[in-house]
Each structure stands twice: as C-alpha cells, then as structure tokens.
C-alpha cells in the first residue's frame, strides 16, 4: 500500500479514537473542577510528527468530526484545529526541536491556544459570556490539566504514526550518525 494512504489511514484511526475517547471518557471526567481536552494535544503532536500540511488537514477533519458528534457549530473546531495543526507542523519544519520537554511545552501551548481560539471564536460569533475571573481560572486550570496529559498523549500519537512516517527526523538523524554520515539537517 502506498505510504501516503497508510499515513491517512493511521491519522484517521488516531482521529476517530481521539474523538471517541474525548467524547465518551475524558470530557466526562472532572479533574480539579474542569475537564481535560486531548484533541488539541493530538492535533499539535500530529503536526510535530507529520508536518504542517498533514496536521492542518488532520485538524480540519477532526474538527468536523467533533462538531458533528457533539452537534456543535460546524466549521468552528475545524478552523481552530487547522491553525493549531499548521502552527505545530511549522514549528517542527522550521526549528525541529529535539528536547524531551518539547511535547510538554507544546502540549501546554496547544491547550492554551485552543482555549483562547475557541473563546475568541465564540466572542466573534456573538456568544454573550462575560469575561470573569472564574472563566479565566477555568481556562488556566483546563490548560494545566491538559498539559499533564501531554506526555502520554504524545507517546500514543508517536507510537501510532512512527511506522508510517515517510521522513522522521530523529530516525533519519540516528541512521546518519550510526553509519558515519552527516545529518541532512546539519548540512542544510
């Protein structure tokens, strides 16, 4: 089977699994008075591992799926997740960060960006929700709780995508070093 088709199938499986888990389990768990959201984490980590275009498309599809499953405003989640996936993908393409803390930092950033993006979209769409201290507290706590889930979610996404990624930078670099060659990134 063509590698691109394999990647699409894996991304579809990850997306469906993430949305089902989010809707059926994670969103029904109250932690510190709020709910975690793993979808921004999954979209951001897909961007980190599979690139901006793949992640943007993945975010678009997951957004439509989750809006449909929850009978939400169609297109709203897609818009937020497209931006999130694309941004995470560009981070990998431009910086290629290697620190083991990158998933944690990216998870925190993605959760906060998603929360801010949804709040902004709701505001633009005319939702009358006053910005209160309680609302800000909920957003901060939700971001922190989601950040706690960043590492296991990253491990899961990486495990799901590792075998079908056409060009994983770490594997490529490790292969180059062990064979005595230069990393393609170090040459560029």
């Amino acid at each position, binding site marked *: 089977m063509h590698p691109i088709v394999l990647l699409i199938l894996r991304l579809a499986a990850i997306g469906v699994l993430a949305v089902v888990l989010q809707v059926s*389990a994670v969103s*029904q768990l109250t932690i510190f008075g709020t709910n975690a959201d793993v979808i921004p984490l999954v979209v951001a980590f897909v961007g980190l591992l599979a690139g*901006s275009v793949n992640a*943007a498309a993945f975010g*678009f599809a997951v957004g439509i799926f989750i809006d449909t*499953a929850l009978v939400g405003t169609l*297109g709203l989640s897609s818009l937020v997740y*497209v*931006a999130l996936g694309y941004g995470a993908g560009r981070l990998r393409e431009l910086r290629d960060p290697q620190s083991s803390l990158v998933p944690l930092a990216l998870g925190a950033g993605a959760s906060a960006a998603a929360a801010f993006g949804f709040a902004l979209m709701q505001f633009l769409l005319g939702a009358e929700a006053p910005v209160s201290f309680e609302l800000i507290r909920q957003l901060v706590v939700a971001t922190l709780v989601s950040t706690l889930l960043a590492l296991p979610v990253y491990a899961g996404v990486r495990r799901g995508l590792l075998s079908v990624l056409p060009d994983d930078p770490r594997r490529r670099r490790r292969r180059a070093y062990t064979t005595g060659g230069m990393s393609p990134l170090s040459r560029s």
Partner: protein
Amino acid sequence: MHDKTIRRRRAVLLGLVVGSLLLLTAYFGESAGGGLHAVQRGVSGVLSPVQEGASRALKPVRDGVGWVGDTFAAKGENEQLTADLAQARQIKADVNALTRENVELRRMLDMNERLQIQDMGLVPARVISRSPNVINQVIKINRGSSDGVRPGQPVVTGSGLVGTVDTVGSNFSVVKLVTDADFGAGAKVSEGGVTGVVRPAAGAPRELRMDYTEATDDVRKGATLVTSGTSDPRFPSPFPPDVLIGKVTEVEDPGSDSQVIHVRPFVDVRDVNFVEVITRMQPGRS
C-alpha cells in the same frame, strides 16, 4: 521544487481555512432544517450508538479515574467534616451546659415561690471555683460584700440547702458546704416533724447524719429532711424554714437514744453552678 512545496502548503492551508469559514458561514446562514444541519443530525444519529457503546465500554476507566478524584475530594471533605464535627460537639456541649443551667435556675425560681423567700434579699451568684479538698468542702461565688453578702448567710439552690457564707470579699464569697466538717444546721423530718441537727458524717464526705433525736422519734428510710428554721425574731435562725436538705437513707438502732439517721443531701455539691444567698432573714428587713 522548493517553491512548489511552499505554494502547495499554502494552498492547502488556505483551502482548509476557507473551507472552515465556508462551513461556518453556511451553517450560520441556514435554518435549523437546512442541509448542513440535517447532515449533522444524521451523522450524529449514526455516531450516537458508537458513542454510547464507547461510553459504556469506558465506564470502568471513568469510574477508576473518578474514584481517584473522589478519594482526593473525600480527603478534603473529611477534613472539613472533622472540623464541622468538632464545632458541632462544642455547640452541643454549650447547649447541654445551657440546658443544665436553665434547669438549675428554674428549680431556684420554683423554690423561691414555694418557700416565699423572694423578699429575703436573694442574691443570685455563679460558682466560680470549687475546693478539691474532701474535708474542707467550700465553693467560691462571684458575689461579695458589695452585693450585701455577709458571713453566716444561708446559701441555697433549687435542689435545696447548699451551705453558709464563710468568708466574704468585696466581690466574692467563700461558701462552706453542707458536707464541710464544720457545718451544722437545725433540721426536721418533713413528714413527722421530728427535729434534730444535721451534720456531715465523719469519714463519708458526701453524706450527712441527723443527731439529737429522741428514742421515741419515728424516722423512716426515704423521709425528707428540711431546715427547721424559724421566723420568730426572738430566736433568729440562720436558715429559713422548709429548705430541702436531703433524704433519709438508713436508720441505725431505730427506737434507741443512740439511733443514727443517715441522710444523702439533695444538692450534689460537685455539680452546683448557680446559688442564691439569702441576705435578709426577715422579709423587708436587712
């Protein structure tokens, strides 16, 4: 090649953003029965059984995580409830103390009415300390000479005779209890009128005995002793008449001159909180 990649990437991004915006616009623009809404409802209807199945399948996971969260919440709740319980216990203790005080005060009022001693310059007082000594049995009250209290004045409660004032300060007094080794009072059996003198029983700190009775005096177990008293100004008594003293518990050698009558005082001297000092033995006179 590089430019082509960039153009493709930007085109995809633009397409996705435009697609999202189109979806949003179309979704908002149509009515609830519109095409997008209908499709959404249809897909959601198809997904519902999947969601329900997943929800049931993942229930143990939710329960497990919820149990952990509940455990932490219960720990905090436990601390709060422990604090509430301590507060409730304190309130209960306060209520019990107030109830006891209320009973004591009501008894005192009843006694005042029964003995008609309201006009005898009654000075209510609170017990502020007790002597731990079983021989020298005294209590300290919060009324003194500035309230008209003088040595020798009788002290009573609703349950009966407590003792007499022994020492007086300006704002306190020491009361010698009926069970003190030096106490003595004229008494009579309320049922038959037998008179005698009540004193503490030697070697039995919580007991009294009635002396100076005659062999012909018939005193039965269970009889009630009251102060004999007198209202005759020629022979003033330190106690008003008919103040309860105690109950006869035993009569040794009955019918003899050496008969000994054992009496248990009505007033539990260890549990007295309020007393009244009778400052005028003659109504209207000090």
